[in-house]
C-alpha cells in the first residue's frame, strides 16, 4: 500500500484497491484453511490485521491467489468490480456446497474525478479484523464438508470489461434454496465490501 504515504488518514483509490484486494487474498486463504479445502499442514501462520492468519504454502494455490488479487486490484482501481464469489464445490460431483460472497460498492465519484477520501488505516483494519474473526468462527455453524472439495473464484464485473486473456465467462454457480448468513462489512470510503456466506441446506434437518 505504497500510496498511503502523505498523511495517515487520506486514502486514495489506488490504496483502497490495494487494501481490498489484499483482503481478498487473506480471506480466501482463511476460508480454504478453515473449511479444510486443503490440508492443515500446507498452511503457514503469519501475523496480519492483528490476528494470526494462515497462508497456503502450496505453490499452485499460492500463484492462483496471487494472480487473482493482482487482477482484482486492477478492476478495483477502475471501479469495475461488483462482486467476488469464492465457491466451494464437491470434487466428486461438482455440486456447489458454499458460496462466499463479497459484494463491492465503489464510490463512482472517486473513480471518475480522482478525489481522495479520509479514513484512518486503523479503523479499516479493525473492520477487516472483525470479518476475519467471523470467517474463522463460521465453522461452528457451517455444515461439515466431509468430502474432498475444490474451490473456484468468480468475479462479477461491469458488462463493458474486456475479458482478460486468462479468464473465461462462467455461470454463477448458485446454490438452490440456500441458507444465508450475513457477516460484517468494511468500508474504505471508496470501496464498501459486504460479506455473506450461503450454503447448502443440511438435508438432515428436514428429514
Amino acid at each position: 500500500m505504497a500510496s498511503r504515504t502523505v498523511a495517515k488518514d487520506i486514502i486514495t483509490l489506488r490504496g483502497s484497491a490495494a487494501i481490498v484486494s489484499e483482503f481478498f487474498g487473506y480471506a480466501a486463504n482463511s476460508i480454504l484453511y478453515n473449511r479444510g479445502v486443503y490440508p492443515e499442514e500446507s498452511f503457514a501462520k503469519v501475523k496480519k490485521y492483528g490476528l494470526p492468519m494462515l497462508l497456503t504454502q502450496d505453490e499452485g494455490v499460492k500463484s492462483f491467489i496471487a494472480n487473482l488479487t493482482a487482477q482484482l486490484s486492477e478492476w478495483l482501481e477502475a471501479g469495475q468490480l461488483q462482486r467476488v464469489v469464492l465457491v466451494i464445490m464437491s470434487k466428486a460431483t461438482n455440486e456447489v456446497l458454499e458460496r462466499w460472497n463479497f459484494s463491492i460498492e465503489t464510490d463512482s465519484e472517486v473513480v471518475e474525478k480522482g478525489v481522495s477520501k479520509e479514513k484512518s488505516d486503523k479503523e479499516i483494519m479493525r473492520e477487516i479484523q472483525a470479518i476475519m474473526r467471523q470467517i474463522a468462527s463460521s465453522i461452528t455453524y457451517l455444515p461439515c464438508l466431509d468430502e474432498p472439495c475444490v474451490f473456484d473464484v468468480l468475479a462479477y464485473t461491469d458488462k463493458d470489461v474486456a475479458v482478460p486473456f486468462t479468464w473465461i465467462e462462467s455461470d454463477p454457480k448458485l446454490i438452490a434454496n440456500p441458507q444465508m448468513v450475513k457477516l460484517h462489512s468494511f468500508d474504505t470510503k471508496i470501496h464498501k465490501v459486504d460479506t455473506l456466506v450461503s450454503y447448502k441446506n443440511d438435508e438432515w434437518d428436514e428429514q
Partner: protein
Amino acid sequence: MDAGSRYNTSSRRPFSDHKLQRISSRENLDRFIPNRSAMDFDFAQYMLMGGKVEKENQAPCSPSREAYRKQLAEIFNMNRTRILAFKNKPPPSVHTTCQNSLSPLHQSKPNNKRRRYIPQSSERTLDAPDLQDDFYLNLLDWGSNNIFAIALGNSVYLWDYTNSSTSEIVATDDDNGPVTSIKWAPDGRHLAIGLNNSHVQMWDSSANRKLRTLKDVHGSRVGSLDWNSQILTTGGMDSMIINNDVRIRSHVVGSYRGHSGEVCGLKWSASGQQLASGGNDNLLHIWDSSRASTNSATEWLHRLVDHTAAVKALSWCPFQCNVLASGGGAGDRCIKFWNTVTGACLNSVNTGSQVCCLLWNRHERELLSSHGFDHNQLTLWKYPSMVKITELVGHTSRVLFMAQSPDGCTVASAAADETLRLWNVFGTPELAKTAPKTKTEPFVNFARIR
C-alpha cells in the same frame, strides 16, 4: 489381535463400501435433474425471442413499445454483470486426492485422519540379546512377507509378525565375525546377509537354506546392503559400493567409487533409477543406476557435503519421487531434505541428537526419525513443516535401527539397550487399506503428473 488377518479383511473393503457410498450421497445418481431456481428463465426467454420480436414489430413500433423494449433490454441485458472465472482452476489438494483414492472409507469416517491416535508406548517389546551397538551397521529389516529379520551376534533371527513365530538362521561363527548387515530381497523370500569377514551370504528363508556366498566383493566388513530388483548393492568398510547380480556366476556387475570412509547407508529410490549412499566420510552421494560400470565409476550424480558427521540414515520420500531425507550422526544431528535431480538442499533441521534412522510414513506426510543421546527417542515430524508431532520414548539407549511393516503402519525399532520395540506410529491397518504389499510407490501417479 492378529494384524495380518485384519489387514486382509480391510483390503476387501471396497465391495462393502461401494453400496454405502451410493446411499449416502444422492447427488451421485446418474439421472439429470434440472435445477430450476438456478436457471434464469426470464432471461433465456428474452434472449431466445428478442431478435424475432424486434423484426416483426419494426413497422408498427409505437414509442411506448420501444421504450418498453429498451427497458426490458436494460433490465435483462445491460444491467447484467459479467461473471468471470479463471481459465486455470486452482489445483485440487493433493491431500484430498489421496483421500479420494481411499474415498469409500473416508466418506464413512471423515475425521479419522485428523484425529489419528498415536500410542505413546510400544505395542510390544522383545528382547534382542547380543545386538551389536555399532552405529555403522544395518541389522534390522522387515520383509514384504511380514517377517522381520534381526541380526544378533553371529546369527540372524526371523520373527513372523502375523503369528509371532520365530526361527533362527545360523549365519556364521566367531572367526568370520558377527553379521554386519541384512536386507530382504523385494520378493520377501531371499535374505542377503553381510558379514564382518567381507562375505555376503544369500539365504532362502522359506527353506532355511544358504543359496550362495559372494566372496571377494569387499576388502573388509559389509555394513550396508540394498536391493534393486535382482541387483544386490553392497557397501563396505573399504569405502566401495558394488552392484552384484545374484543370478550370475561372476556377480560383480558394477561399482561406485567416491567415498573415502565406510559406507554405512545405502538406499535405492523406489523407481530404481537413483541410489543414495552415505558414508563415514560425512559424504552423501547420489548415483545414477545407468552410469554404473566396472570400468570407470567415479562419476556421481551429486556429491553432497553438507553433513558434518557420518550419514547413515537415508530414506526416499514415497510421495515425491525426487526427495530424499538424510540424517547425520552425533557430530551433525541434522535431518536434511534433498532434491536429488538438482542436488539442492530443500530443508535442514537440527534435531539435537544423532540421527540413526529415518522412515517416511507412506500414508501421511510424516517422517519418523530415531535418535541417540540424550533421550533415545523416536520423533515423528510433519512434512514439510517439520513440526514435531510426537516423541516416543521407551528405549534406554540409542535407537540404532528401524524397519517398517509391509503395510506401512507398524515400525520396529532396535536399540543398543538390546530390546526391539514395535510401535503403531503410522496409523492403524484399517485406515491404511490401500497400502501396497510390493515395493511400488503408493503415490506414483502424482509423481508423474508433476
